[in-house]
């Protein structure tokens, strides 16, 4: 081993310690789903890997309507993401590529970004009251509408950044050939910014999948999504059910972790409002 490698060693030790700090708690939490309540409340078996069981998972599927809530989450996430993108893509194209006043462009674009700062608590109360009046309260479609609307702004803002990267010469050439704006969007802009489009879609998907506050107010036992179920099922008895906590958390975070690892590069850009481009 050369001197240089020896000097490097403490650095990698530090990196691995940090990684352990970040990842061990998640593994510990996931592991709890495979422990029965007796094991989990035994102080001598805190880090033990013995006595693992699938019983809690089976209980979740059989008695906790877990599959129904998983289905709600999947339906809400996929449909709201799809519709939000259908609105955001044309809006972003309009802002990025079409002829309009520079002032209007900037202020509209900023408005879409500013929506990101809006605290959810400020809109949830009136929406709750209105939904109660028109019968959308405690229904899944009601929740989906909210998810669509609240994810359009950031998606539009991020997509605008990606669409602007498509060289203007290409758009102009297309227009000379008689391309209408709509066919330019479909045939040129969308295919050329496919990676960006995919990353914004996945980011929107993650935001909706993870959402709790709206769902906790606007759903009930027949329309809950996974995060609301997770909160509910952990606390429904006199003791905190750490086993069920492990099951519900694992189901929520595994898909997100897979997406995060696959889309790492683009997610950073999405999460920093498009400021980090790389």
């Amino acid at each position, binding site marked *: 081993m050369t001197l240089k490698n020896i000097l490097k060693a403490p650095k990698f030790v530090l990196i691995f310690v940090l990684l352990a700090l970040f990842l061990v708690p998640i593994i510990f*939490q996931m592991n709890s789903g495979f422990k029965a309540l007796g094991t989990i409340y035994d102080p001598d078996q805190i880090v033990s890997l013995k006595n693992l069981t699938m019983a809690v998972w089976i209980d979740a599927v059989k008695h906790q309507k877990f599959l129904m809530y998983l289905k709600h989450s999947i339906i809400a996430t996929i449909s709201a993401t799809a519709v939000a993108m259908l609105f955001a893509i044309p809006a972003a194209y309009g802002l990025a590529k079409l002829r309009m006043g520079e002032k209007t462009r900037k202020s509209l674009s900023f408005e879409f970004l500013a929506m990101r700062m809006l605290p959810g608590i400020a809109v949830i109360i009136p929406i709750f009251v209105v939904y109660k009046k028109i019968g959308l309260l405690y229904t899944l479609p009601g929740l989906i509408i909210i998810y669509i609307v609240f994810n359009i702004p950031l998606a539009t803002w991020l997509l605008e950044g990606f669409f602007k990267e498509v060289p203007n010469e290409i758009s102009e050439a297309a227009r000379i050939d008689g391309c209408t704006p709509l066919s330019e969007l479909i045939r040129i802009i969308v295919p050329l910014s496919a990676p960006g489009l995919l990353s914004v879609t996945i980011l929107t998907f993650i935001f909706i999948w993870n959402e709790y506050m709206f769902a906790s107010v606007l759903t009930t036992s027949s329309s809950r999504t996974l995060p609301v179920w997770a909160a509910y099922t952990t606390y429904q008895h006199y003791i905190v059910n750490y086993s069920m906590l492990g099951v519900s958390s694992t189901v929520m975070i595994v898909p997100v972790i897979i997406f995060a690892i696959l889309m790492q590069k683009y997610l950073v850009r999405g999460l920093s409002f498009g400021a980090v481009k790389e």
Partner: protein
Amino acid sequence: MKTKIQGANTWKWFVFPALFLVLLVGIGPLIYSLFISTHQYNIAKIQIPYKFVGLKNYATIFTDPHVWNSFKLTIIFSAASVSLELIFGSLIALLLINVVRGRNVYRSLFLIPMVITPIAVGLMGRYIFDDAVGIVNWLFRLLNLPRIIWYGNVKSALITMIILDVWEWSSFVFLIILAGLMAIPPEYYEAAKVEGAGYFRTLFKITLPTLRNVYLLAMLVRIIDTFKEFDKVYIMTKGGPNFATDLITVRNYTLAFKEFNIGLGSAFSIVILIVMILLGTFLIRVIQRTY
């Protein structure tokens, strides 16, 4: 270049549907909320009649010690979390900047805490900080440190929330600083080398000025988000024990959806909204001035 197909109003066909939806369902409720906030409105207690009360709800909010407490806690939570995240994020970025092999693997792994469901983070906090069977106290016992009642104790509950937020979001700061560092064109460093600038001169003349905007952006995002923090704190303690983690959003949620005092909740949410707008505008001004 002028084309026949693209008129001056074409953009409206593309932008207006999204804009309309956002204004209708996003901004519309805010206006309705202003209206509700001037009414006495409790959906759980029918003995309290629905009626116009003017600005009385706002007066109640501003004289409620729990509301002032929640603002105080939010400011402490935000200031402590954001500073620690900046420190830890920078530390990780410094550690990993010259690690080329496996960089994407490291970045993916560090990305995990910030993308996983916040409710899962809160539940995880509940479990790992459990004073009897949590892994944190297990580790403390191993190291002969005293057993701490983390979130069940008025003194340490907010600190536990701060630790959890730092755990969740330090890697956000790390990732954007790393990207910022990598975005500095190598020619800058080569030019500095040619001119004979040393390590510190390069650091202060090239690296830090370029990174300043990255830091400001990280602060902007994190300050706004810590003011909006709700999920993990609510799931862990519901604002307790004895209001020790009662952040503004938690207080507001409790007022509106646990006590069902919709009028009062609306007034509070309008106050929060105004605070957020002022804070956001201020932070954006600071960033624009330094550009």
